[in-house]
């Protein structure tokens, strides 16, 4: 199955925000929006649900902290207890700083790796830009032509009313859609 896309090109942040909102309200399926910077309010305009990455951060941070407490307890109280200044074998309060550091390390690194994984970013990934200037100043709205009733002419009119500078249709083969 190949995918047919309609691309609208915009020059201004306000235009792409309004256009995205209008296109979504009209019931069309937005494939993605490409912007040179994180546009404030765009996730709401596109109707994206909040990212679940905080859960990764929370759970892995918890796991890191838990593992570290266990490890500190095991090394200092069980495997080879060493008497340091008569302190108790299990000096839990003294374990707090390192536990905290390891928690931050686990939470931070796992969040970043999870982000790269779900966003499918990796070193050397081949990139196909919607427009060469999309990392510079251009905004691109990509609408998926999901069914036969899709009226490209009407959408085109809608986009132009929001000052789209150009509207284009592209077809992605099945291989490229991956």
């Amino acid at each position, binding site marked *: 199955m190949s995918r047919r896309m309609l691309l609208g090109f915009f020059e201004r942040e306000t235009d792409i925000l309004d256009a995205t909102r209008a296109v979504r309200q009209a019931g069309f399926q937005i494939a993605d929006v490409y912007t040179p910077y994180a546009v404030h309010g765009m996730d709401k305009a596109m109707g994206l649900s909040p990212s679940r990455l905080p859960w990764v951060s929370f759970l892995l941070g918890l796991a890191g902290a838990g593992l570290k407490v266990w490890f500190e307890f095991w090394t*200092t109280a069980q495997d080879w207890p060493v008497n340091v200044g008569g302190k108790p074998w299990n000096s839990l309060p003294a374990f707090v*700083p390192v536990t905290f550091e390891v928690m931050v390390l686990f939470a931070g690194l796992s969040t970043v790796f999870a982000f790269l994984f779900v966003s499918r970013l990796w070193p050397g990934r081949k990139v196909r*830009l919607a427009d060469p200037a999309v990392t510079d100043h251009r905004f691109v709205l990509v609408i998926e032509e999901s069914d036969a009733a899709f009226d490209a002419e009407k959408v085109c009119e809608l986009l132009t009313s929001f000052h789209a500078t150009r509207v284009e249709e592209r077809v992605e083969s099945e291989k490229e859609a991956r």
Partner: protein
Amino acid sequence: MANPAVSLREPLIAGRKTSAQVSRDICAVLDRRPTALWWSAFLLALSTLLLGVAAVGYQISVGIGTWGLNRTVGWAFDITNFVFWVGIGHAGTLISAVLFLLRQPWRTSVNRSAEAMTIFAVICAGLFPVIHMGRPWLAFWMIPYPNWRGPLWINFRSPLVWDFFAILTYFTISLVFWYVGLVPDLATIRDRTAPGLRRRLLSFLSLGWDGSQRTWQRYETVYKLLAGLATPLVISVHTIVSWDFATSLIPGWHTTLLPPYFVAGAIFSGMSMVLTLMIVARKVMRLEDYITRQHIDKMCKVTLATGLMVGFAYVIEFFTALYSGNQYEQFVFVNRALGPFWWSYWIMVGCNVAIPQLFWLRRVRRTVWAVLVISIVINVGMWFERFVIIVTSLHRDFLPAAWSSYAPTWIEIATLAGSFGLFFTCFLLFCRFVPVIAISEVKGVLSVGRQFDEPLPPPAGARPLRAVPAAAGAVAQTEATQ
């Protein structure tokens, strides 16, 4: 059309820039050939670094008996430098993480270089404890790994072990935070670069960033999470550094005041270092529109606020000594101000408390050369603060028979100079190869303080719809819908 809220604020970025101009201005430095000024600065930094390398090589091969330490003063120059450099790093995290959480849009112009400064400062800091080990090739013994010595584990009750974990975590998280922030900008440079080796390298490093809003949304989430993690982290790091001292029983160190005092001092010294670097960089790299007087003004205010906290801590230290009724504690503080090292104490007070008060004056905060001078003065003062805390607390201990003095040898001074060489070598390379201002973040705040009145784009016209193949190999669609 005039929005009254807008006119209340000064524009954050001067010169009525557009997004395309921002990319062009910031990348311009990377495309130019290095100037003679850059080369002379770089060669100076590099030769200082080589001097430091020679000094470190010598003291490792001969032993740290080459230092001015004695049985009474066991910590001096080396640990002073360590605390100084860790402190410098903290302003970077303050700007990138704390100001992000506080929604301060002005941070975008300085966060990239401040974070780079953090990374380089932490590298410089981390070297000193390793050199101080005397046998640095055994530094890996700090890692709790199953070894043939028992396995004998490290002592998790020791603040020095906490410090190892804190510095390592801080370095890793700062580096990752910096790199994540850099990815969209690397993509921007990639797309402006002609095909070739440089572009291939940038493609590799920019991880295939395509500006997708779904990725941007996750990116923002990750950024927020990292900022949320880095904020308590930065406080923990300097708290733990202060515990290296506070958990001992040395009068002058053994106080609960030390953690907040150290954290405030760290941000104070780091902010002044950011000011020093940014004032020079904006001039040399012609970035005055991006790092405006407004930015400098705001950083001066942060410096002033943290400087007052530090000054307050100096007073409280004396009060605590007086109030404790402990004669050893009282002696240490009188000795600090009036003993043989009185000059270092008064340099500290003069540079950190007296001179920064000039920042109350708006005229001073807006005069760039004055800010530059004061920021350098604060850097000197903050180095002396650590020297005062460490050396004056040690050199006259409980028994007068054991009292001694301390003077650094030229080896120690060369090592300090070498750490500055390392720092500036890294920073100058950073200025050449990495956009010093976060391009994508600045684009997001262009509208702050001005009516964003970009001209309307030309209308798409009568023939709006054109069908083109998505890429080579795709089925070409001819004007199907027209």
